[in-house]
């Protein structure tokens, strides 16, 4: 059987030669992120903003449509209301801003909507998040992402050198920010699942970075007489096949969630698809490229063979 080969055996791409172009690309998407955040901000879901969300399914798909539903709900004078199709023609997602007054008003509004549409729609899901909880979740989300980044940074610092840890964390921040940027630019709903997607992306991306760093560390010991430039390039090339294969299997899984996992999961999968792509990119072009700006000590200028198995030493 002829095996599938995505990456030839002995690649020798000069990745670092295009690092300036890669940096430019990163700067462009990062600026895009900041500009979009300033102009569009994030489309916070009710998890963070507070408010009411209802998922409705029409009982008589022939007569009901989004305009009719919109008209109906507008009679409630509930303030800002957004209604959109959700997954299917017959399914609608209704978001209602948080109501004036205390929590009782919010609950009362849900009841009012429910009794209004009761005849023509079934309520598949109803959610209400009070503003207090929304703010708490926002803070908790921010802390969770920071805590994850910090603990990853410390771990890498212990296992590698501090230079690696700084390069890795900058690459991670790059991934997190651009994923947030994606949500801002496309105005996708930013909710609890998004935070989960961001953290998983961070986990994936650091996984990728660590694999390459691991090889860099090994090669630094092995080829002490070679330049850093050579070693970094060689390490990326040696791990390239693995990087690509793992990205492909992960993306396969994610695309399947995107297409078959239902409407609730599709934004989540989209964030992760972006995260895997940008994470792979950043491991090579941000993390390793950044290493070139540090002068990492290789020790004596003699190739160290002690942690190479004996059978290989004559190499």
């Amino acid at each position, binding site marked *: 059987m002829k095996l599938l080969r995505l990456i030839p055996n002995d690649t020798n791409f000069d990745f670092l030669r295009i690092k300036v172009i890669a940096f430019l690309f990163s700067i462009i998407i990062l600026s895009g992120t900041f500009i979009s955040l300033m102009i569009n901000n994030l489309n916070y879901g009710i998890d963070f903003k507070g408010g009411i969300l209802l998922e409705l399914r029409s009982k008589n798909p022939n007569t009901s449509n989004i305009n009719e539903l919109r008209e109906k709900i507008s009679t409630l004078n509930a303030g800002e209301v957004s209604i959109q199709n959700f997954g299917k023609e017959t399914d609608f997602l209704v978001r209602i801003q948080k109501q004036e007054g*205390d929590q009782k008003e919010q609950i009362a509004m849900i009841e009012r909507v429910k009794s209004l549409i009761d005849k023509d729609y079934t309520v598949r899901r109803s959610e209400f998040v009070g503003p207090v909880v929304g703010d708490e979740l926002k803070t908790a989300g921010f802390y969770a992402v920071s805590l994850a980044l910090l603990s*990853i940074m410390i771990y890498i610092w212990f296992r590698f050198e501090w230079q690696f840890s700084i390069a890795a964390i900058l690459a991670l921040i790059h991934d997190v920010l651009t994923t947030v940027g994606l949500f801002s630019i496309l105005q996708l709903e930013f909710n609890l699942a998004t*935070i989960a997607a961001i953290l*998983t992306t961070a986990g994936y991306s650091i996984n990728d970075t660590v694999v390459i760093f691991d090889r860099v560390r090994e090669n630094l010991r092995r080829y002490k007489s070679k330049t850093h430039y050579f070693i970094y390039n060689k390490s990326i090339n040696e791990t390239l096949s*693995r990087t690509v294969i793992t990205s492909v*299997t992960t993306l396969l899984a994610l695309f399947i969630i995107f297409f078959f996992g239902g409407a609730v999961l599709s934004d989540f999968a989209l964030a992760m698809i972006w995260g895997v792509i940008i994470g792979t990119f950043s491991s090579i072009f941000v993390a390793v490229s950044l290493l070139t700006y540090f002068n990492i000590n290789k020790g004596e200028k003699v190739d160290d063979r002690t942690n190479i198995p004996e059978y290989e030493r004559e190499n």
Partner: protein
Amino acid sequence: MKSLSRIRLILIITSVIIGILYATPNFFNTSQQVQSFNFLPGKKINLGLDLQGGSYLLLKADMNVVFAEKLDSYLSDIRSLLRKSKIGYKKLSIQNDIISFQKRGETSNDKIRSIIFSLDKNLIVENKLNSFFIRFSEKNKNNITKTTMAQAIEIVRRRIDETGTNEPSIQQQGADRIIVQLPGLDDPSRIKKLLGKTAKLTFQLAHPSIFPEDLNEDSKAPPGFIKLQEDKNPDRFYMINKRVMVSGEMLKDASPTFDRNNSPSVSFQLSALGGKKFGRVTGKNIGRAFAIVLDGKVVSAPVIQTQIFSTGQITGSFTVQETNDLALVLRSGALPAPMVILEERSVGPGLGKDSISAGKIASIFGLVAVMVFMLLTYGMFGIFANVALVCNIIFIIALLSIIQATLTLPGIAGIVLTMGMAVDANVLIFERIKEEFNSGRNILDAIEAGFQRAISTIIDANLTTLFAALALFSFGSGPIKGFSVTLMIGIATSMFTAIVITKYIVFLYSKKKDVNSVFLQD
């Protein structure tokens, strides 16, 4: 090769068998399981509310109300203590959560302080010249919160139990919050209504000469009286004596019934002590209106016709459902604090089912896609990786069942994602073997070296991912926690399957066959 030791084989086979035993119940629906699989250990994985349908409520006890009430009762305690000790005082009042008064006469400040401390030694007492200021310390507040919450949870539980909801879960969260989870209940309106009432019931006499007809919004209450709204008619007011004659704690039972005019009402029975008190009050006040006050509003104020002892009826303009609910909340007792709903999430059974089937489809497709890809990329070794992958999924399902974790929709996504990421450990190993092989090792040495070197990378890479999953766990609520749990379990099992199972199969195979012929050549 020592990796082929018998102990290792036994370990692998045992863990796979245990995995299969614990995972199997999840693949059958309950009725089938009862018939032919009840010899299996363990239970199915808990499905989260987003998959089985149900409601989640986050309640907060409004402690400020409780603090104010408590402070109020301390105010009357202080008044009576000062009187008893014959200490003159003036301007005894509460402002901004501080009780203040000025002493008259020459009693020493220390004596007054010690009298106040006899009430509660944790109070904060300050005095300037003749003025005293008393407020709660954090310790007071914490103690009050603790006892209030214990009671509140008990009452919430009783009220929910009485509705006959299946397997409700009621837990305290933080200092003053309660999480209520109601599986299978997709419309929690009734529960919310039941929990929305504190159901503080009191019987108080109405003013003998000021009647509702004389009152409007601007009327002022004479000392010792309070103006209260009527429950069903906010424009009608009553002038009610502040003194509580009988309160809801003295109720023994309450049930919905109909009164003489056949309109829905609630009959109640008082405890022995309550009955005695009720008899005394009604006996002395025939002809006066006796108000039934619920949560600060007058339900009705019937005129006392005869002396009544331990049983009575609460009438008002009720519907049958309202009398059912009122009787229920009266039986369960008053909530010690008003409950505010901070968050509510309800999922109907339809959406839950759809999510499960979408999850199933995504899992199967994901599994097939990854397996086909691995087979195409690695041939025979791909099959080994796929065996490991299947074991991995069995382990994940088994572990989730064993720890009785809650599987949520994001959790299913976590499993599918793990399928994609789990093969990474195998990819790392195989790629390393390839490299070692291409640099001129013989195949057995290459396999040995490949495993040996890939392992440190696998551990580093997976531990860092684990940090992200841990952060997610610490942050997450409900569904997100479920996702992080599956992710963490996936990381652990994928390391085990790659390092132990794949390794064993590869070594076994390479010993018996000429590996070169099936692997790694271009």
